[in-house]
């Protein structure tokens, strides 16, 4: 039996949930970024799976969206890690619990 689209969607949902655990429960800013990257990878997996299981002969739309989304995720990772380093220079910490200057 070959895997159906359902199986791929469930795998993608599991990957998204693992990323959500990392993004919600970590204190270290770098690991919140890793969680976000895992959620983006899960979204890419959905795009590719829907493209692959499209019943009609099709243009490579899903592949194109996945390529652009990978490029944007790389830009986001670069800026996010630069922000982590800038915050570390100022506060000597990368724990998001200590970044509460704007708290009312």
């Amino acid at each position, binding site marked *: 039996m070959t895997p159906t689209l359902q199986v791929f969607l469930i795998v993608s949902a*599991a990957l998204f949930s693992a990323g959500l655990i990392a993004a919600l429960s970590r204190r270290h800013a*770098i690991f919140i970024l*890793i969680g976000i990257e895992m959620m983006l990878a899960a979204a890419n997996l959905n795009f590719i799976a829907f493209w692959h299981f499209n019943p009609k002969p099709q243009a490579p739309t899903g592949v194109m969206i*996945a390529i652009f989304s990978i490029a944007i995720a790389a830009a986001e990772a670069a800026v996010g890690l630069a922000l982590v380093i800038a915050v570390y220079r100022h506060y000597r910490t990368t724990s998001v619990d200590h970044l509460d200057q704007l708290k009312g």
Partner: protein
Amino acid sequence: MSSVAFALITILTLAAALAAATLQNLMHATLSFAVTLVGVAALFFLLGAEFVGLVLVFVYVGAVAVLIVFTILLTRRDLGKDRGANFWGAVLAVGLFGGLTWAILKTPSVAIVAPHIRALTVKRIGEALMTGYVWPLQCVGLLLTAALIGALVLVMEEKR
């Protein structure tokens, strides 16, 4: 598409993802993150999108994982303070997974097997990028340039 290969890759990917989300040691978690992305790239290969799988390996394992390791080394003084999973975050994630799985299983139109499709060659991807998608391609190029300049400005030493 071999279901044995699919099962093995899925188990490896999800185990590595859970390890990346919960391991205490930051280096080990980063390594698990890289393994997760290799697994996702293998799933892309199974789905017939070889080019995207290769791009994923080059960009994430080659660049982003190395960037994360360098950031960990640069902020090294702060290591070892991360505690494990927060209870409510884990409950929310598991609830979301349950809800999504329920919705997927209740939708009959996604229970389909793959049709026979023409292989997607790099030539076709290149033609599509240079014809129909040339405007998004230029925008992504501009975005990458702006993001890299922004990252450099953020980490430059402040003048005293």
